[in-house]
C-alpha cells in the first residue's frame, strides 16, 4: 500500500467508523484492512490532514478534557491505529454480504482479527488508556438494525440494510409483515452461525480488554488493578460519564 493509499484508507476509516463512534450515526465500512492496511496506518503521521480528521481529533480532545485536566488527548499511537483497523475488520466480518459460496470469509476474517488482537498489549501508560478510551468510547453503542419481511409466499431477512421497496409493495394484498430488530454489538455476527458468533464475541471481548474503559459496557471483566492509581481514577471517571453526553462534562475550549 502506497502512502497515498494509506492516507486515503485512514481517512475512510476515520470518517466511516471512528467519527461515527464519537458522534453517533451510521458507520460506513470499507474493504477489510487486514494486517497490511493496519500497519500502513500505524506508520503514518498521526496528525490530522483534513477537516473531518480534525473533527475526530477535536472530539478526542474534548473527551480527554472530561476525564482529566488536559487540554488535548494524546495523538493516536500505532497500536491505536491497529486497534481501529481491527475493529473495522471485526465489524466487516459481521457483514452478511461478505459471505461466499466457496469458502468462509467470515471465519477467515475473524481468525485474522483474533491473531492481530493477540499481538496488541493492553494500555501500558495513562496516555494510552486515555487515547484508546476517547477513540473507542462508542464501541458499546454499536448496533445493527435487521428487518425480517414475511409475505404471502415466503420470507426474507435483511441485516444492516433496508428491504427493497418492491418487496414491500401491495402490503395488504401480499400480506407483507415487517419485523424490525435491534442487534447489539455482541450479537452482530450471530446470524453467521454459532462458531462465528462465538468467535465474534471473543474477538470483541479481546478488543474490550485492550480498551478497558469500555469493557464494562460490553459485559467484559477487566483487571483494573493493572491500571494503577491514576488509571483507576480515569477508569472510574469514564464509567461515571458513560451514560452522559460524553465530553460535555468539560467546557468546549473553542467556544
Amino acid at each position, binding site marked *: 500500500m502506497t502512502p497515498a493509499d494509506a492516507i486515503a484508507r485512514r481517512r475512510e476509516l476515520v470518517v466511516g467508523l471512528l467519527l*461515527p*463512534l*464519537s*458522534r*453517533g*450515526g*451510521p*458507520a*460506513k*465500512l*470499507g*474493504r*477489510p484492512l*487486514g*494486517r*497490511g492496511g493496519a*500497519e500502513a496506518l500505524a506508520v503514518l503521521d498521526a496528525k490530522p490532514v483534513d*477537516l473531518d480528521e*480534525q*473533527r475526530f481529533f*477535536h*472530539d478526542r480532545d*474534548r473527551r480527554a478534557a472530561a476525564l482529566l485536566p488536559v487540554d488535548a488527548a494524546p495523538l493516536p499511537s500505532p497500536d491505536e491505529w491497529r486497534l481501529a483497523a481491527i475493529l473495522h475488520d471485526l*465489524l*466487516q466480518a*459481521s*457483514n*452478511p*454480504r*461478505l459471505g461466499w459460496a466457496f469458502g468462509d*470469509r467470515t471465519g*477467515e*476474517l475473524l481468525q*485474522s482479527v483474533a*491473531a*492481530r488482537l493477540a499481538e496488541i498489549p493492553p494500555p501500558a501508560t495513562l496516555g494510552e488508556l486515555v487515547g484508546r478510551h476517547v477513540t473507542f468510547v*462508542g*464501541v458499546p*453503542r*454499536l*448496533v*445493527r*438494525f435487521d428487518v425480517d419481511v414475511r409475505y404471502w409466499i415466503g420470507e426474507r431477512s435483511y*441485516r*444492516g*440494510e433496508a428491504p427493497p421497496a418492491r418487496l414491500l409493495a401491495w402490503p395488504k394484498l401480499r400480506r407483507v409483515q415487517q419485523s424490525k430488530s435491534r442487534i447489539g454489538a455482541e450479537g*452482530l455476527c450471530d446470524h453467521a452461525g454459532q462458531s462465528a458468533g462465538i468467535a465474534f464475541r471473543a474477538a470483541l471481548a479481546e478488543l474490550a480488554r485492550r480498551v478497558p474503559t469500555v469493557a464494562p459496557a460490553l459485559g467484559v471483566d477487566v483487571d483494573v488493578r493493572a491500571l494503577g492509581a491514576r488509571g483507576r481514577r480515569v477508569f472510574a471517571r469514564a464509567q461515571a460519564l458513560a*451514560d*452522559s*453526553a*460524553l*465530553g*460535555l462534562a468539560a467546557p*468546549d475550549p*473553542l*467556544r
Partner: protein
Amino acid sequence: MLVRVVLHQARLLVPGLSLDEKGVAGGPRVAVLFASIDRLVAFLAAASQEGSFEDVLPSRDVAELVSPAGTRAAVVFADAAARLHADVLKSLATLVGGHAFTGASRHFVELRDASAPYGFDAKELSQAPTEHVFYHRTYTQGFDRARTLDLERLVLSLVPGLGRTADSRARLLLAQPGLGPVVTGYLARSGVRAEVASVELPDLGPRVLFRVEELPPRMTRLFAGLPGVESFVPDGEGFAIAEAHRHPVRLAALPRAPGRLVLVRADGPAIVVQDPTFVDLDALARVRLGAEARTGRALPPPDVLSLPLVLVPRTTPRRDVAACFVPKAELPLLRRVLYAKPTGRIAVLADGAFVVSGEGEGAAPLGTAFYRAGHGLFAPIGFDVAPQLSPEALDRALRLPPGTETFLMPDGTAVACAADDLVPVERALARGPAWAALAPAGLDWELDAPLGAPEDVEVRADDPGVFPLRGLDRP
C-alpha cells in the same frame, strides 16, 4: 517743681496720678510736648515706624497750645495703655527733642526716667489759670489750647521727598482723561492685569485711575516719565505715594478708612478719592478692540518686513538628532540597522526614506541627520534656520497644516509628508509570507455544535467489494 516718688510713698499731690502695683506713679494719659510743629512731625514719623497710630497713640489728641506769654507749642495727648508703652513714647519724644508727661486732664508731670524710676510728683500745684499745666524738672508751664490739629490732615499736608523705586510692582496710574483709552489699550494688549476707574478730583477735574496688580519694569519706567500720567506706589491700605518718592511718615500707620484712596503726589497736595469704582480692564479693552475689529480688515504682511527662511551653517555641533533621510542607495543598509533596533517611524519616498526617531531615541546613523526645529519642522544638522524664530513662529511662517512633518533639506528645498504616512518601523519591517485560511468557517461551525447525548453507531451491511479478503494478512 518736681519731687521724685519714692518706694511705698502713700500719697501724691498731682490730681490724677496714681501708683501702680510696682509703686510707679502715673496718670491715665500721656502728653508729649513739642516746642515746634516740625518736632511733632519728626515724632509722628518715628512713631509711625513702631506701628499703626491706633496702637502707638491710642485715643490721640493733637493740639497746638499757646502759653500766657504767647509762645506756641504742639502736644500729643494719648492714653497711657501701660507704663512700658509710656516709656517708649518718652524715648521717642526725647529722640526728637520733645518732653513726655503723664497726668489725667489738666496737670501733667514728667514721665519717669532713670533718675526717678518711680516717677515724679509736683512739689506744689500751679495756680496758673490755664487749661493744662506741665511740670518739668526745669520748668512749670501752663498752656491753653489754641486749636486742635487733625493728625491725618497734618500728615497728608507734608511734601514727600525723593526716595528709591519701591520693590513692589503694584502701581496706581492716574491718567488724564484723554490718555485713558490709550493706556487701557496698551495695558490690555500687553496682557497686564489691571482695574480701571473714572474719578473726579478736586482742583484737577476728571481723571482715569488704573490699579495694576503687577506692572512690568519697562512700563514702570515708561509711566514714570510719561506726561499726563502719574504713577503711584501703594503704601498701606488706601494710600499711595508718587513713584520714586517717600513720605516722612509711614502712611500705613494712618487709620484706615474703607472705600477711601489717598494719593500723595510728588509736588502737590495729597488727593483723596472717595469710593472709586474699579472695573476689570479686560471688560473695557474687549469692547474697544471689538469695535476696531469690525471696521478693520486683515492685510497681508508687507513684503518689506518679511525675511526669507534660509539655512545658515552652524559652527557648534548639536547632538539632538531627531530624524534622518536615507537615500535610496543606502536603504538595504538602513534595513539592517532597523532590524537591529526597530524603533521610530519611517516614510519611504521615491528617492529615499525619512526615519523619525521617538522621544529620547537616537536616529539611525545614516544619510542626512535632522534636528527638530519646530513642532512639525526638521532642519539638517549643521545648519540653523534663519531668522531665528520660536518653533510656533516657524510653523506659522511655513503655514504648515496640522499633522504634517516638513524637512528642510540642505539644498534649500523642503519636503513635507503627512504624519500618518510615517508608520512605525516595526510595522514597516514585517512582511509575512502569503497565507490562506484553513477553512475556518466550517470548522468553527462544527466545533461549536455540542456532542449531544450518546447515540447508537449503526453498522450497515455495505458492499465490501470484489475479493474483499485478498491480501488480508500480507505484511
